């Protein structure tokens, strides 16, 4: 598997993103790319800035984004990753404004460090197309509109690390419905459950008190799967607004996992979807599985 981890600075939120990414990656033996997306300067000033950067490099002073990547790399080392490789400025390769540090492959996985500048959505989308990642892990976006855009336009699974507390013993809240991505969400949550030693709360919510056949089948399939995979779980069939129910059930000590909606993109663009609204409103990490 290939993970893309997006960080923007050296603050606690980036640390949370790295922590949760490391914990998940351990279970998947995944390759991961840490990507720093910095703000781009105004186009009118771009060359001036490039000239200064060149001058600064002669004094061994590099882009602040590289310091963030170095900090992230050191954090990974602390966590037992990248034991045999070192952060080295000499290994930087620049192409079309994207800076990448070429690092040797470790036994089971490859770590990449990438520096980009520009608008977050556009840069992550370009990186995604380049690397074909299975999941993107990033902190909570500044606005709920940005959460919406990232969830809709990034064509992969996406984990928003929101209000993550390193000291919590997280459980998993899995929202099950009849969407196409639900099965993948069930499989994903099983793997994460094993990794976090976390119980899964298998929740199906119907807008009415009547639970339809497709919902019931999906719910039962999940139950059987968890039994077969021997993961601890509880099941609930609820009536009400799915978004509110998921958020209420999850509180702040769950990781919510939902399948991405495959409905009409135009409607999703204007009105959102259950997974998008949940990601916008929840007080805990939310994983939308593609």
């Amino acid at each position, binding site marked *: 598997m290939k993970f893309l981890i997006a960080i923007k600075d050296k603050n606690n939120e980036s640390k949370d993103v790295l922590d949760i990414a490391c914990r998940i990656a351990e279970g998947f033996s995944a390759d991961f790319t840490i990507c720093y997306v910095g703000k781009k300067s105004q186009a*009118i000033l771009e060359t001036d800035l490039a000239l200064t950067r060149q001058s600064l490099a002669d004094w061994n002073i590099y882009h602040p984004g590289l310091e963030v990547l170095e900090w992230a790399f050191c954090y990974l080392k602390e966590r037992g990753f990248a034991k045999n490789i070192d952060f080295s400025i000499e290994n930087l390769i620049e192409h079309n404004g994207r800076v990448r540090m070429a690092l040797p492959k470790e036994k089971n996985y490859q770590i990449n460090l990438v520096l980009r500048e520009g608008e977050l959505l556009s840069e992550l989308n370009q990186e995604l197309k380049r690397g074909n990642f299975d999941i993107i892990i990033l902190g909570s976006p500044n606005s709920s509109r940005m959460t919406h855009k990232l969830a809709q336009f990034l064509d992969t699974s996406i984990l928003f690390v929101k209000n993550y507390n390193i000291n919590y013993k997280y459980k998993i809240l899995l929202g099950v419905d009849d969407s196409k991505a639900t099965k993948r969400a069930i499989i994903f949550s099983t793997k994460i459950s094993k990794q976090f030693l976390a119980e899964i709360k298998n929740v199906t919510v119907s807008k009415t008190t009547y639970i339809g056949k497709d919902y019931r089948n999906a719910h039962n399939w999940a139950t059987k799967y968890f039994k077969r995979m021997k993961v601890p779980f509880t099941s609930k069939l609820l009536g009400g607004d799915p978004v509110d129910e998921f958020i209420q059930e999850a509180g702040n000590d769950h990781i919510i996992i939902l399948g991405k909606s495959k409905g009409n993109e135009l409607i999703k663009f204007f009105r959102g979807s259950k997974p998008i609204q949940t990601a916008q409103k929840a007080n805990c990490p939310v994983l939308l599985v593609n």
Partner: protein
Amino acid sequence: MIIKNKNEIVNDILFWMEQKRWLIIISILGIIMFYLPCPENISIIGYRTIILVLLVVLLIITEPIPLPALALLIAILQVTFNIATPTEVARTFMNDSVFFIMGSLMMAVAIVQQGLDNRLALGLIRITGNSVKNIVLGFTLLSALLSSFIGEHTVVALMLPVGLSIIRNCNQQHSIKNLTALILFSIGYGATVGSIGTPSGGARNALMLEYWKTISNGNISISYLQWMILAYPMVIIGMLGTALLLPITFKPEIKQLDTSIRKLKIQVAHKGSIKGSDLMTIIIFVFIFLCWIFLHERYGLGIIAISGAFLYMVFGLIEWKDLNKHTNWGVILLFAAAISLGVQMKNTGAAFWIGNIIISNFSNLINENTILPYIVNILLTTFFSNIMSSSATVAVLGPITLNMGGDVLYMGMTTAIASAFGYFSVVAAPACMIIYSSGLIKISDFIRAGWRMGIMSISTLLLIYKFYWPLVINLINY
């Protein structure tokens, strides 16, 4: 080939629309305005020129398309809107001011490539010693004096490594946030304040020279030296004011930088003594500077500037591939397009119409108080330079402010000078953007320091307009 399903195609279209939303909104606005009835007292092509100006301003601020594309759009729409003929558009795109901007930018690249920063660092610390107060004064004065001749972005490219090295070499057991901000702003604001000193201080100054010629039908033509006589007092007061105000805003945590300066001396010593190429770089620049002062009437500022770039290449001080890589050709094209648009604003009466509308709101007050158009001009220019950039502000606003009443020379000078008052935002000036890109200062720091700088600069400019320019205007005999 992967065939996408309908939903994926819709998503791709939505993504494109999301990325280009400003382009779509601005295009719709342009189309609506195009079909609205033309206002009174302006010709149809004048009205279309105003639409084009508005679109350009919005496209510069929101940046949905690359700058060179915007420059091309200006040319395309001038012809499409019947504002000018293709030949006229092509003719207005290239003139001496564009050569001047191009030559100055190319010389800046050559100067930065020589690594003169080491010499500057050494010279600076020899004079200032280890005291923070003196170092800040040194950074401000040196940045201001240099940027008035070689452009602010060049100076920041040279000075920032020195400033950051001092910060990094500090014993960082305690937080040195204020000291960091103090050193970086002394470079950034120093360079911004200095950039108004001569026409070669920034592209915006060259733009104003061209607008004067265009608006006055060639009656106003200011020389390099005449510009200096008018603007340099502002630089001197500005740099001293900056050196005074910054330590009040950012009180440094430490007063002496003994260790840091010692380390910097060692660092510079490692880079060796002055080389022949360093000396040659300085000699060529001084030669060009003297040509700007004494030979501009015969050769024009632009031809002299590109002669400088030519000499740097001939003497092997810079390779063409480096010049080509580091010169912002897109910006040069944009300024060429802006000058072309400025000419059409004058020819179609659009500049006069907008200027008249702005100033007619204050007509009663202007009769009583002649300083008012200048105050409006300064505030308008300061506002726009903080949301666009200083050069783009002069490019767009220049033809308008020259038509807002008041003396054309004074109005142009106040516009050019006030465009450097972009102290409040990161986007205003190259120097501000570059120091912000270090990642060590916050946007709020610009507000913290900017309001003091703003008040100081605006009041100084008004005093200079009121008392100094009338004294020297006969002396310069423009």
